[in-house]
Each structure stands twice: as structure tokens, then as C-alpha cells.
């Protein structure tokens, strides 16, 4: 009985975001558009009519979008929603964005993937604060097609002169933002003028109606012909194969292609493209989530870009970026974040606030801080050299996002490029001391350095650190100990034991250790630092002179010692996430020194440690070389 035609392959829906000042008519526009294009399921129309009746109102199209009870009671739209609708054969998704200023982050959530925007402006009121804010955001998130809907022109009696004057003001505003509006549509959403059908009240207007303007939005351009960017999302090991997975952000891969991997620049060939329940593939293009094996079988890290040698990304440790700041508190120089870029995460510090946008007139000014939900240009200092592409609208290049140490997204950072030089009086200028390391070493009789002791709780880190400290001090070495409990009593007293807080604890310990080591001290750090990633972070922060020391004590022995009664508490379920009990400890693979404590006295072991440190910080050839 089946006479049903198989549907033809469909294009993905084109996302369109609707923005504009509160009460300029966004929700009414959407409701009206859906009604005029017959896009409402029967249930929805009935719901609106019933809701409007209950409140004693004539049919209010905006109710369609205010689908949450709390919002309807307040009469505002809180969050963005997505509504599919069709014009002819083409699918669209309307993203509704709220007009209330404090809900900027909801607007971005909806708008960031849009292909085009409709900026709704009340022709009578002209551009208002949120008109400017939203227009700024359209520029920063890289939306290229902006349709300006001059709404409520019925108030002007559809007068051409008045409408065109309003249009000139908006054009000037958008030009300031380097946005070239695609088209201006004079309309009345409530009355239906120039929405889906041509208004007979504006015969002078020869341009498109709103639906015609939407239908003319070009389809998303393919990113497949750009040079390859494949950010590594994860590396799996299934059966005997090591599989690298990720989504191709641009370009294409083909079995046999040579790719360069990450900042270290190893090279490999795409050996196979793996899949399940899909015809075997020899090639894949931008947009696809792929799984590949590499030859040779190198192991990339999450965040590494795979790219062609002929078109490498930029490489820098200091980057200029635009910023839309989403936190409710201001941003100041010196704050540290993670910069997420595709699947990579980099430790960054705000090195300078180069300028802040004044929303009254969208001009850029120097400032001490970026205000809540403000726009700015800033310079980021990265803890390591990173790869990136500058932001390009219509691609995923340079889409940086700042997250705080609780993994909360606090800002969007469309990256501009390499920061050539630093200017402005708020800039951080890490200065080189006039006193050289060599001068300090000469004066002290030894070099500085960081000896990072890791091991299970109760392994004996603090005891050994103190033992070595006493011995080294007796020999005239300028030595200090940073241990976990001491740090947590002071510098890190605001931190808990979540993963993010532990990592922050490590970061601070490493930053302090570095300062001390640069002043010529020998610093012994005693910190569980259970993960390889934690210690890698410490190594990156400290740089040269970092030594990883593994206090290798079997867990049974640690638990038997249990000097602080912590194992007993963890076993009794009183402590969660305790390393060794219900949180993993990742032993170092190649520590600079491994000390086994189970079968030696702590005196012997401390002496071995002191000897090792003494040897590593001796005034020797390395310093001599530095001098010459």
C-alpha cells in the first residue's frame, strides 16, 4: 500500500537570529511571521488564543515564545528559543533572543550559530542601548548578513521621509561597527505590512518583504575548500588500534595525506578513516566528526590541531583579542583564565586591557577595567606557545572562549592576532630583573631551582622535605619548603578540593615556587599533585629548573602510617575524592628522582634527597656557560 515518495536529501535549516531593543517588537514579529507562513501546529495556535483570552487580551502573537510560566507573568522573554519554519522548500530556524540587558548570555547562546540576523528597530524610537549592544555582538560573533526591520512604521503613517531618516541613523550606527546591512525593510509586524506580503500603504518601497529578504540569505558557505584544521577531541584505544577523533572544522582529509600535529609539529599520515555502520571512507570534509588512525602511530593530545604543512596556523604566546565579557563583575588586568579554542585549553592571564567600547556611542576608550557585560580589546599572555587562527566570520577560526577556574564560561574572545607590543598603563610588563640569575647564584654559592615532590597522602613528602631542608640549610643553601597544608592555611585558604580547586592550588604553588627560584632560592614543593596534567602545568609555569621527584611509597604503607588519620576518615566515607581511595593517583612516568621509602629510614632518604638537590643546584658548567 506504500505509495509514499522518499523525501529528497534536505539542506540543513538556516538559523536566523532576531535581535533588538526590548519592546521594539521581536516576539510579535516572530509570532506574526509563523502565522503568515502557516508554520504553527494547530495545538500552538489554540494555546495562544486560549492564553490571550485568559488574560483578557486580543490575540497576542508574542505569547507563542513566552512559553515559560514565569516569563509570561513578567511579560518578558527570558531565554532564547528555536522555532523551525519553512519558506518554500527552504528550512529556517528562528532563534529568538531576549531584549533584557542582563540576559546577554542567553542571547549569545542563541545567536552565535546564526547565519543571518534580523535587527528589529522601532522606527519611532530609533536605536536604543540594546540596539547598539546587539549590533556590537552581531559584529563580534561574526554574523555577516544583517536585515534591518524598521518596525511600527504605521505610527509614522507610513511616511517615506520619516522612515528614510530613521534608516539613515541606523545605517550610520552599523557602519561604525563595520556592518553593511543587507537590506532595510519598513514594516509593521502587528499589522502584517511587508512581512509575508507586500504592504499597499508604502507604494514607494520597492525592496523585498521580510520573507523575501530571508529567502535571499545565502546558504552557509562550505568550509571544505579551506586548508585543513582538525582539532583532536580525544584519543581512544579500542582493540589494538589507537584512534584519534575530532570534528573537521575546515578543509578535508584523505587517506594518505600528511598532517602536522600540534605545536610540537610531529608529522604523520592519515592511515585509515574508521567508522561503524557506514560505508568505508577514504575521505572526509569539514563538518564531519571523524575517527582516524595515524602512521606512524604518534599520540596527539586533546587540543592539538592537525593541519597541512603548507598552511600552518599562527603561533604565539601573546595574543590580541576582542572580548565580549559575560560576567556580572568587571574584568581587570592580571586575572587568569583558561582560553578554550576548539578542543584546546590554554592557561592565560589578561596582560592588558587595550580599549573598552563605550556603549552610548560605540567608541573605543582606554580603561582600567572591562565593565560587566562590556566589550573590549585585550591582550592575553599564554603560559605556553599556542596555535591559533585569527577570527573569521563564517568559519570556526579564532573562536576563543574564556572560562574561569570553575569551568564557567565568562567571555567570548574572537582572536585578532599575535600581540606585537604592549601599550597602555594598565599593561602587565613582566620585567627582567637587572640582577641576573648568575649574580644571584654567585652571591649564594648555588643555583635556584624547584624540586616538586609528588606522591600519595602519607608517602612522606613533607617529612622528607623538612629533613632535606635542614640538611641543605646547614650547608648554607638558601632553601624553603612549600607544602600542601601550609599553602592551604594561607595563600590557598579560599580553595576546596574539587578538581578545579586542586588544579588552582597547583598553579599557585608553581607560580610562587617560580618567583622564589628566580630570586635564587632552592624551593622544595611537597604536594600530592595526583595527576600527570597537574604536574605538567607546574612544569610549564616553572620552566627551566623544574625537577619532578616521586616519593614512591606503597599505598598499604601510607595507609598504615596515616599520620593525619585521613585514610581512616576516607575509608569511613567521611572524605570524598581522597587520592588513593576514590580518586586516582597517576604516578610519574619518568621522574628526575624516585625515592622508595618503604625499606629505608626517613633520615637516609632525606639525606639522599638533599644530596640530589645539592648536586642539581651546584654552581657548575651550566651556569658557567650562561656567563660566557
Amino acid at each position: 500500500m506504500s505509495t509514499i515518495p522518499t523525501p529528497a536529501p534536505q539542506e540543513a535549516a538556516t538559523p536566523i537570529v532576531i535581535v533588538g531593543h526590548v519592546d521594539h517588537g521581536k516576539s510579535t514579529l516572530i509570532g506574526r511571521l509563523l502565522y503568515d507562513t502557516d508554520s504553527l501546529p494547530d495545538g500552538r495556535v489554540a494555546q495562544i488564543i486560549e492564553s490571550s483570552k485568559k488574560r483578557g487580551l486580543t490575540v497576542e502573537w508574542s505569547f507563542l515564545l513566552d512559553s515559560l510560566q514565569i516569563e509570561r507573568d513578567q511579560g518578558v522573554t527570558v531565554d532564547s528559543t528555536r522555532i523551525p519554519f519553512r519558506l518554500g522548500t527552504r528550512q529556517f530556524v528562528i532563534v529568538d533572543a531576549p531584549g533584557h540587558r542582563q540576559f546577554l548570555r542567553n542571547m549569545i547562546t542563541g545567536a552565535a550559530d546564526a547565519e543571518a540576523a534580523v535587527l528589529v528597530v522601532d522606527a519611532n524610537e530609533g536605536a536604543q542601548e540594546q540596539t547598539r549592544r546587539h549590533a556590537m555582538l552581531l559584529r563580534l560573533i561574526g554574523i555577516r548578513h544583517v536585515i534591518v526591520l524598521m518596525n511600527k512604521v504605521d505610527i509614522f503613517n507610513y511616511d517615506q521621509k520619516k522612515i528614510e531618516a530613521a534608516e539613515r541613523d541606523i545605517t550610520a550606527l552599523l557602519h561604525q561597527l563595520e556592518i553593511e546591512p543587507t537590506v532595510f525593510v519598513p514594516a509593521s509586524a502587528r499589522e502584517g505590512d511587508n512581512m509575508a506580503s507586500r504592504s499597499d500603504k508604502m507604494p514607494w518601497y520597492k525592496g523585498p518583504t521580510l520573507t523575501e529578504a530571508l529567502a535571499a540569505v545565502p546558504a552557509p558557505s562550505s568550509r571544505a575548500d579551506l586548508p585543513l584544521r582538525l582539532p583532536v577531541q580525544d584519543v581512544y584505544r579500542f582493540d589494538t588500534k589507537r584512534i584519534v577523533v575530532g570534528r573537521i572544522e575546515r578543509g578535508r582529509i584523505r587517506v594518505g595525506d600528511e598532517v602536522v600535529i600540534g605545536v610540537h609539529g610531529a608529522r604523520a599520515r592519515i592511515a585509515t578513516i574508521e567508522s561503524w555502520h557506514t560505508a568505508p571512507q577514504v575521505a572526509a570534509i569539514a563538518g564531519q566528526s571523524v575517527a582516524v588512525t595515524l602512521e606512524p602511530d604518534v599520540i596527539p593530545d586533546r587540543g592539538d590541531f592537525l593541519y597541512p604543512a603548507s598552511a600552518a596556523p599562527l603561533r604565539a604566546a601573546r595574543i590580541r583579542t576582542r572580548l565580549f565579557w559575560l560576567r556580572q563583575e568587571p574584568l581587570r588586568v592580571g586575572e587568569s583564565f583558561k582560553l578554550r579554542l576548539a578542543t584546546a585549553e590554554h592557561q592565560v592571564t589578561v596582560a592588558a586591557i587595550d580599549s573598552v567600547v563605550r556603549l552610548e556611542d560605540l567608541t573605543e576608550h582606554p580603561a582600567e577595567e572591562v565593565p560587566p557585560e562590556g566589550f573590549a580589546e585585550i591582550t592575553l599572555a599564554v603560559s605556553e606557545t599556542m596555535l591559533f587562527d585569527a577570527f573569521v566570520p563564517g568559519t570556526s577560526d579564532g573562536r576563543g572562549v574564556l572560562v574561569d577556574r570553575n569551568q564557567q564560561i565568562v567571555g567570548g574572545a574572537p582572536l585578532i592576532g599575535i600581540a606585537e607590543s604592549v601599550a597602555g598603563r594598565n599593561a602587565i610588563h613582566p620585567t627582567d630583573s637587572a640582577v641576573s640569575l648568575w649574580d644571584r647564584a654567585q652571591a649564594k654559592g648555588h643555583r635556584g631551582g624547584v624540586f616538586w615532590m609528588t606522591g600519595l597522602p602519607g608517602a612522606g613528602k613533607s617529612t622528607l622535605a623538612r629533613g632535606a631542608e635542614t640538611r641543605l640549610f646547614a650547608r648554607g643553601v638558601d632553601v624553603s619548603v612549600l607544602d600542601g597544608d601550609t599553602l592551604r592555611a594561607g595563600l590557598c585558604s579560599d580553595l576546596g578540593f574539587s578538581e578545579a580547586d586542586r588544579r588552582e592550588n597547583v598553579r599557585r604553588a608553581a607560580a610562587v615556587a617560580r618567583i622564589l627560584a628566580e630570586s635564587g632560592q632552592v624551593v622544595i614543593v611537597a604536594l600530592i599533585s595526583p595527576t600527570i596534567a597537574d604536574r605538567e602545568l607546574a612544569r610549564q609555569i616553572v620552566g627551566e629548573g623544574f625537577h619532578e621527584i616521586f616519593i614512591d611509597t606503597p599505598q598499604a604503607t601510607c595507609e598504615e602510617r596515616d599520620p593525619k588519620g585521613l585514610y581512616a576518615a576516607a575509608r569511613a566515607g567521611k572524605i570524598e575524592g581522597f587520592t588513593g581511595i576514590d580518586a586516582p593517583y597517576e604516578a610519574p612516568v619518568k621522574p628526575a628522582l624516585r625515592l622508595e621509602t618503604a625499606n629505608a629510614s626517613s633520615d637516609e632518604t632525606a639525606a639522599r634527597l638533599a644530596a640530589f638537590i645539592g648536586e642539581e643546584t651546584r654552581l657548575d658548567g651550566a651556569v658557567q656557560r650562561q656567563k660566557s
Partner: protein
Amino acid sequence: MDDLDQLEAQSIFILREAYRKLKPLAMLWSLGKDSNVMLWLARKAFLGNVPFPVMHVDTGKKFPEMYKFRDEYTKKWNLELLLGDCPPVEDIDPTLPPAARSAARKTAGLAAMIDKYKLAGVIAGIRRDEQATRAKERVFSPRGAGHKWDVRNQPPEFWDQYATPHEPGMHVRVHPLLSWREIDIWRYIEREDIPLVDLYFAKDGKRYRSLGDQDITSPVESNATTVAEVIAELETSRTSERAGRAMDHESEDAFERLRVAGYL
């Protein structure tokens, strides 16, 4: 790439993010069409494997066909199945309307499982187009203490960067099907030949369009006996998918109250 390819690629990306960032992780398997599609996408993402357990929160009131389907495919697809039960309806907030109160049992059962397995992430197959309150969701939706959904204070989510908080007592609901529509689900089922409980197909002029508990789900008028016929039917249908789900219609805010408390 056509639209199904794009939806598939995006869902695979989301599943891989969840697997990388949230541990321990589990996937809800309600045995309905959407969660079967989601499970299928997981097998695509992880090349035939499902590297985390699937959870069935059993209200004890599902259709017999669903239990049979569960047991058959747990074996066939080599799944690690976690089962949880739900408290009796008498234990549930009596101020909820009757059907919502019945549905809320599942919320309580789910909360107990999340606590029991200390889950950091729960993958769920909800879609924006199902219900207006679900349209407000994030792909990664953090849940605070008591599993509450803070609708008015959701994190920003853009450029494929998701919030992954690691605070004790929190978990993240992950929604890989959020952008799919009902008809996309059916077209994908057709394309991939994904098995389904046969309650979705018409018998005696009626079929289930959405499957919940037996006592609060009703079938719709339909003659569609194959996937292709269901697709054809949906292309002309103007009623909403959850028309057969009683708790959606009891009062304007019943469904939102359910969701704030942790319902899917």
C-alpha cells in the same frame, strides 16, 4: 553533507565531549525511539562500542513490549545496563496534578540512581521541538544541589563550548538530540534501519507516537504501519507529538515544575 549528516556529526561531537569531560557518565535508555537513536549515535561515536552504562529508570508501568525489547537489545548490543526503580506515587508531591505526579516518580527514581552511581554526567534524549520548556534547554545543562534545574540562571553556551562544572553534588545533563526534530528522528531511523518497539506502528487504526507509562500515555489515530508511512504522516500532521502525554496538558506550568525538579 545533508541535514541528517550534519545532525549526526553534531551529536557525535557532543557525545565525545561528554565522554571526555564527565566521569562517571551514563546514558538514559527509555526504550523509546529517541533513546534508541541516541544509543545508535553513541555506537557511531565510539565505533561500535558503548563505553559507558545505559540506565533504565523503571516505573514498573511500561508496556510489556518495551521490557522485551530492553532485554533483547541489551544482549544484542552488548550493553552494560543499570536498572533503577521508582518510589510509589504516594511518596510524590501531592500538589502536582495526577498525571504529573505519576510522571514525577521517574524523577525520584532517576535522582536516586544519579546519587547511587555518583554520576557526573547523564545523557538524555530530549529534543527542543517536543515541548516548549525543553526548547529552553542547553546541550550541557548543569544541575545543582538536589538536581534542580535553574532555568533562569543557565550558563552561556556558544561556539561548541559547554559548561562542565565539577562541584560536588552537581551533575550535567547532556542532550545530544536537542536540535533534532521528530521527523529527523524518523528519517534517521529509516536511513540507518534502527530497531524499534512495534507500539510505534498502527494496529486497528491507532499507534503510539510517544511512549511513556501505560496509564498516562494514549495512542493517536493512525494507519501508519511502516517507518516510511510514519514519515509521510508526520509531514502532514499538525498535532503535537506529546498530545498523548497526559501530564503535558494538565495546567500551563505542570510540565515546567516537573522539569525544574529534574524530570527530563
